[in-house]
C-alpha cells in the first residue's frame, strides 16, 4: 500500500494544494512539514496582493480543507533526502523519503514543495539592517501590520518613509542574479498600507525597474501613485547612513534626471528577495536526476510542459522550490504536480 502513498515535502501553499488534489483523486498524501504548523510563509503575511485579501482567510481555507479531507500531516519532521531502493512504484524509482536519523518513510512518489528562503538583509551591509534602528524589511512590516504595531523604534509615527527595491535580488554582489518577482508588488502594497496608517507621511520608493507582471498589479501601482501619493524614484540606493538627529540619510541617483539625490528619512523598508532554499543542494544530491539551476532553485525538467517534473522518475516539484512565484501560481502548480504524480503511479508515465 505504501506505493500508493505520496509524500509531499513542505506544507506551504504549494504543498497543501498538492495534498488536497491528491486526496481528491483518491490517493494517500502525507505532508511532511518541519515547522510546527502548516502554512509556510503564508502564515506570516498580513494582507495579500493584489486584492488585499487577508492572508489568514486563504490560510484557514487551505488548512480547513486539509483537515476536512483527513490528509495525514507530520509536523516537526524534516525530510533529509529522497530514498532509493527496492519497492518503488516502478523500477529504479524512488521508494520514499529519508527523515531524521536515517528513518525512512516509504512512498510511491514524492512532491517537493519545500519553498524558498527569505534573503538575509544583513548581507547588504550598506543598508544598515540590524545596525540602525528603523531599517526594516518587508517581512518585518508584514509582522508589524499583523500585530497592528507599525511605528518607529521609539513608538512614534514615521514622517518620511523610503522603500528600497531589489534587496538581495538582481545583485551580483550577493550572488543573487535573479529577479524575485513578488517584491515590487509587495513594496507597492505595503506603501499603500502605510499610507492608510500615516496619512501625513511622505513615502518614496526607490526602484531599478518596476515589474508589475500580474493581473491588477499595474493598476495597483497606478493607484499607489495617484491616490496614495507614493513617489517612485528610479535609482538604486547606494547606502544608508545615520544623521546627527538619529534619522537615516539615503543616497541614490535619480536616473530619470541624471542627477544624484540624497534625503533623510525616519524609516527604511528593504524589499527583500526570495532566495533558493538552503536545503535544495542536499535534496538534489540525494537522487540522480535532480539538479539545481544556476540560481540555486531546483531545476524543473523544462519550463513548459515539464515545469512540475524533475529529471527523476517519481519526483515532482511544486511552488517556489523551483523559482520565485506568487501564492496563486504555487497553488496551480500544486494541483498540476498532484495530477502528474497520479498519472505516474498509474502508468509509470514520466512527464
Amino acid at each position: 500500500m505504501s506505493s500508493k502513498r505520496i509524500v509531499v515535502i513542505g506544507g506551504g501553499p504549494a504543498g497543501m494544494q498538492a495534498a488536497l488534489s491528491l486526496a481528491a483523486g483518491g490517493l494517500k498524501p502525507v505532508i511532511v512539514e518541519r515547522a510546527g504548523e502548516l502554512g509556510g510563509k503564508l502564515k506570516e503575511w498580513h494582507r495579500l496582493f493584489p486584492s488585499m485579501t487577508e492572508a489568514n482567510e486563504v490560510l484557514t481555507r487551505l488548512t480547513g480543507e486539509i483537515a476536512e479531507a483527513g490528509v495525514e500531516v507530520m509536523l516537526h519532521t524534516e525530510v533529509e533526502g529522497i530514498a532509493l531502493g527496492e519497492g518503488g512504484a516502478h523500477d529504479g524509482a524512488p521508494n520514499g523519503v529519508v527523515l531524521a536519523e536515517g528513518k525512512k518513510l516509504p512512498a510511491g512518489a514524492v512532491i517537493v514543495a519545500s519553498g524558498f528562503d527569505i534573503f538575509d538583509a544583513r548581507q547588504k551591509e550598506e543598508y544598515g539592517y540590524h545596525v540602525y534602528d528603523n531599517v526594516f524589511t518587508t517581512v518585518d512590516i508584514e509582522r508589524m501590520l499583523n500585530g497592528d504595531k507599525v511605528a518607529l523604534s521609539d513608538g512614534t509615527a514615521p514622517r518620511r518613509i523610503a522603500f528600497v527595491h531589489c534587496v538581495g535580488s538582481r545583485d551580483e554582489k550577493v550572488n543573487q542574479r535573479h529577479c524575485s518577482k513578488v517584491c515590487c508588488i509587495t513594496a507597492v502594497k505595503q506603501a499603500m498600507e502605510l499610507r492608510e496608517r500615516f496619512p501625513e507621511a511622505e513615502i518614496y520608493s526607490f526602484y531599478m525597474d518596476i515589474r508589475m507582471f500580474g493581473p491588477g498589479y499595474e493598476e495597483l501601482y497606478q493607484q499607489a501613485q495617484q491616490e496614495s501619493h507614493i513617489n517612485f524614484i528610479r535609482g538604486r540606493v547606494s547606502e544608508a547612513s545615520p544623521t546627527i538627529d538619529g534619522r537615516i540619510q539615503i543616497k541614490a541617483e535619480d536616473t530619470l534626471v541624471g542627477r544624484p539625490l540624497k534625503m533623510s528619512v525616519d524609516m527604511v523598508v528593504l524589499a527583500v528577495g526570495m532566495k533558493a532554499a538552503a536545503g535544495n543542494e542536499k535534496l538534489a544530491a540525494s537522487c540522480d536526476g535532480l539538479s539545481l539551476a544556476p540560481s540555486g532553485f531546483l531545476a524543473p525538467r523544462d519550463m513548459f510542459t515539464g515545469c512540475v517534473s524533475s529529471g527523476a522518475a517519481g519526483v515532482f516539484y511544486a511552488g517556489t522550490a523551483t523559482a520565485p512565484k506568487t501564492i496563486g501560481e504555487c497553488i496551480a502548480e500544486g494541483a498540476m504536480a498532484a495530477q502528474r504524480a497520479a498519472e505516474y503511479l498509474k502508468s509509470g508515465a514520466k512527464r
Partner: protein
Amino acid sequence: MGAVNFGYGISAARGMDLDRNDLGPAREIADEVPEFRACIACGGCTATCTAGNLTSFNFRMVHTLVRRGEYAGAYREMNKCMLCGKCRLVCPRGINTRGVVMQIKRKLGDY
C-alpha cells in the same frame, strides 16, 4: 590670454537634496492635475513634442525635475511650449499634460 581650459571647473552642485527642496509647489501642481502623480516618465510627451524636436526643450525632464522640487528654469523652459497638445494625445497615463504646462507657468514664475 586666459588660463588653459582643461574642461574641469567649479559648477553649481548637481546633487538634489530632498531635505532642502520645498516640495510644496510640486504638491500643489499635482493637486490641480491629480493624474500627474501617475506619470511613469516614459518620455512619450518629449518624443512627440514639436518644440522638443527643434530646440533643447525636454518636457519630460522639466516636469520630472519639478516633481523633485527642482524649479529653477522650469518656467522659462515652459515658454518654449506652443500648447499644441500633442503630448496629451500620446500620454499612456492619460495625463492632462497641457494642464501641467499651465500649472508650471502659473505656480513657478518666481523660480
